[in-house]
């Protein structure tokens, strides 16, 4: 996994609450069996809608954005990790929102994408700046746990220590769990698979 330490980048404001993962990556793109190549399908239906309003990611001002601002409960709904793969593949390294759905936040942490929780009023202020200031950038420092811009905005955020550690180091946590082999084996010895739950080895 790509480590996340400090990221400074262009900010795209998506000022909507409860953005679900069906919007982030619509179901017609979940049939791929690879982890890559989802970026072009990010927010596909919103980017290709016939409405008058231009979707923020189609706005040339935000081309190349690495940080997405969003409303509360971002990433709710389906557990599809494809949503995070699409964000990352599109170029986003971080999402800043007042809250995230649990599974989505978990999925971010497994893919080197930082989910930053800031109070609603701070996110609203950042949205305002991202709309008003050309080429508006934020710097997100995971080591110092700070979000800053060059116009005096500065705030701290919290994240649990283990998620921070994994992101900073780009760790594969499967490897960490495997270090507990003896404890897992001991647990399995204490809890053998009941005979009745032995499953068929083929489809019947």
């Amino acid at each position, binding site marked *: 996994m790509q480590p996340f330490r400090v990221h400074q980048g262009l900010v795209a404001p998506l000022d909507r609450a409860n953005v679900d993962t069906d919007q982030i990556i619509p179901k017609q793109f979940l049939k791929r069996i690879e982890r890559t190549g989802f970026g072009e399908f990010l927010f596909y239906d919103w980017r290709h809608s016939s409405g008058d309003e231009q979707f923020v990611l189609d706005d040339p001002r935000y081309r190349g954005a690495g940080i997405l601002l969003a409303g509360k409960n971002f990433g709710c709904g389906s557990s599809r990790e494809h949503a995070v793969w699409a964000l990352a593949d599109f170029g986003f390294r971080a999402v800043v929102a007042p809250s995230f759905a649990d*599974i989505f936040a978990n*999925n971010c942490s497994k893919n080197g994408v930082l989910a930053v929780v800031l109070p609603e009023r701070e996110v609203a202020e950042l949205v305002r700046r991202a709309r008003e200031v050309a080429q508006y950038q934020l710097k997100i420092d995971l080591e110092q746990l700070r979000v800053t811009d060059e116009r005096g905005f500065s705030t701290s955020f919290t994240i649990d220590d283990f998620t921070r550690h994994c992101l900073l180091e780009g760790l594969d946590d499967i490897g960490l769990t495997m270090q507990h082999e003896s404890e897992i084996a001991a647990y399995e010895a204490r809890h053998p698979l009941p005979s009745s739950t032995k*499953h068929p080895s083929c489809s019947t």
Partner: protein
Amino acid sequence: MSEKRTLFEKVWDEHVVSVPPGRPPLLYIDLHLVHEVTSPQAFDGLRAAGRRVRQPQRTVATVDHNVPTTPRGMPITDPIAARQIEALQNNCREFGVPLFDIDSPNQGIVHVIGPELGLTQPGMAIVCGDSHTSTHGAFGALAIGIGTSEVEHVLATQCLPQRKPKTMMIEVRGTLPEGVTAKDLALGIIGQIGTDGATGHLIEYAGEAVRSLSMEGRMTLCNMSIEAGARAGMVAPDEITFNYVKGRRFAPPGDEWEKVVNRWRNLRSDPEAHYDKLIEIDAAKLAPFVTWGTNPGMVVPVSGRVPELSTLQTEADRSSAQRMLEYMGLKPGTRIEDIAVDRVFIGSCTNSRLEDLRAAARVARGHRVNPKVRAMVVPGSQAVKQAAEQEGLDRIFQEAGFEWRESGCSMCLGMNPDILQPGERCASTSNRNFEGRQGRGGRTHLVSPMMAAAAAIAGHFTDIRNWRFN
């Protein structure tokens, strides 16, 4: 640790393998359910790292999301879907994982077949790369939806690092009124607490109305916990649970049964156990609900109206509602019963079990689907389909003009050919009314199976409490 423990804490404690300092506890997973959409990249990860599946016997796979619901002999016309199904077949063969394949008499939606095969049992820790894994909590299991990286983690280690969620008790007092189902209870709860009302929490459902629910009803209720943002939902097992599990294919056999059930009887919260949040619901105040917006929290009673924007409190709520109304093609103040539907979908891991189909068939019997409506019934599994056919439910539906199809996730998420066309309006027994969920531009209203069947016949939403049953 407090001596008084909740049901959740008892199951949690039983599954802790290790508490590494500075890291989330490692939980042992008894049952890992796998389907074709969220697993190929996980198996690829195993291959790339030279890892095996640690416990193939605690892993069970099926195909459900992509499978067409047309007769099984017909080819899968979508080559990308076929490739994904084939990938699961190959992965299961390579890693020794049991698979209930497309032609198996046990194929079905992963959250339908787990319980009906007796794989899902009280007190288990269950995961699946699917948010509706919460369904299995109906048995007093700790059942968590996970992402693909976590699927890979569990395949490789049979463990999941998991931060302990907070707990929320939802107590439903009284009894559900006539015509009000577990689905309406779920919608009523989400309408009250919101789609992020339970974020970071595990919900335990209790109270008279929950205890009175069948296992099917409890599954419907727990299924939609995720729609309130919860990590999982649980109901303490009781005689209804034990009777459901008993005798199923992978249930504990007769000679072990009593011993196991005695252990399961301890799976209940101690009196005065602590919850981080308490919610009380008065069952008598619930009604058959219909969603009007594009998230499952936007519910109104069928006798109500699409809300006026002026009744919403904040500017953000008003602009969000305005957007939803535009997408849904609705005007504020419209009576719900005046909203006409084009399509009806009865199915999904929320409402595709035998009891759901019986309820819908009771409504449909002796009526005809409105000529302007296309209605389909998609049983949750091949076993549900067969049981329904033995009771003649297929004939009731077909005589009324409903399509009777093969099992799968179908139009709940439209990964297979069952989708809405842009602008089509659907009364659906599924769990999500997100934009485009059932097809790009499609408009979804979530309802119970009875309400869906009634809408198919009336051609618009109609209050099931006034229905003329034949």
